[in-house]
């Protein structure tokens, strides 16, 4: 893959779906379809607002029921490139239910962790009734410092703390 938006710190997944490219495009761009798959296992997607045009915003909510009640995680972002049936690029960042960017601490992560700015790129290739999809999810450097996931920082801190404590013994 040669794409200048792809940093080495990225998730790249390639899959072939037994469906025409137009249907896969709808999966990403129509709320009715998007809600059916976007929640990873254990999550549902009660809200998916998709204003799919360059400069348009999205707002997703993923929800998991836990013994402590429902845990909701919101994210927002902007569509950067929209080429129907070919290419979709959008940013994705933690948010509140009104689409305001929030610090990861809002989701129980470390207070010192920076908000995470990421970019998702979806490339679709028509294989004649089947579709090859290449999805890249990359961290986008922010103005102040390199983008770093709140979870990653929180875990790093916890591991550091544990190491420090163990070394003291």
């Amino acid at each position, binding site marked *: 893959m040669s794409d200048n938006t792809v940093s080495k710190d990225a998730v790249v997944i390639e899959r072939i779906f037994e469906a025409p490219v137009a249907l896969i495009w709808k999966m990403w761009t129509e709320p009715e379809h998007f809600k059916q798959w976007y*929640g990873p296992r254990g999550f549902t997607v009660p809200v998916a607002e998709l204003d799919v045009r360059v400069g348009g915003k999205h707002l997703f909510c993923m929800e998991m029921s836990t013994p402590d009640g429902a845990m909701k995680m919101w994210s927002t972002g902007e569509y950067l490139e929209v080429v129907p049936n070919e290419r979709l690029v959008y940013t994705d960042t933690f948010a509140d239910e009104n689409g305001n960017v929030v610090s990861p601490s809002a989701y129980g992560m470390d207070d010192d962790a920076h908000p995470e700015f990421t970019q998702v790129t979806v490339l679709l290739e028509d294989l004649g009734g089947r579709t090859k999809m290449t999805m890249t999810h990359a961290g986008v450097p922010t103005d102040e410092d390199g983008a770093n996931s709140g979870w990653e920082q929180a875990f790093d801190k916890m591991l550091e703390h544990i190491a420090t404590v163990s070394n003291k013994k």
Partner: protein
Amino acid sequence: MRSEDDPLSRIFLALANSTRRAMLARLAEGEATVNELAEPFDMTLPAISKHIKVLERAGLIVQGQKAQYRPCTIDVTPLQEISKWTDQYRHIWESRFDNMDDYINELKNKDDNNE
């Protein structure tokens, strides 16, 4: 949706609670009995036990077998496995695309039935 089946969901669920994170921080300093873990919290022992069970299911703590004490110890392996954000998101995206595959099949079956 079966969040209980999935190791990553179990870890997120375990960490999504301030009491449980405080318990892990306490255990990072050394093993502790259930009573010791309960001490800083204004909670009943059954409530504390519930939190411990959630941490245990996530593989983050291990409870010993000594009859009287059953001290808890921390296990950081699950945290190390998912400490890189790309590892977490790879897992999340794979799960999403599995869903997409299932959903596409559902749509196909609906179409077949309508024809």
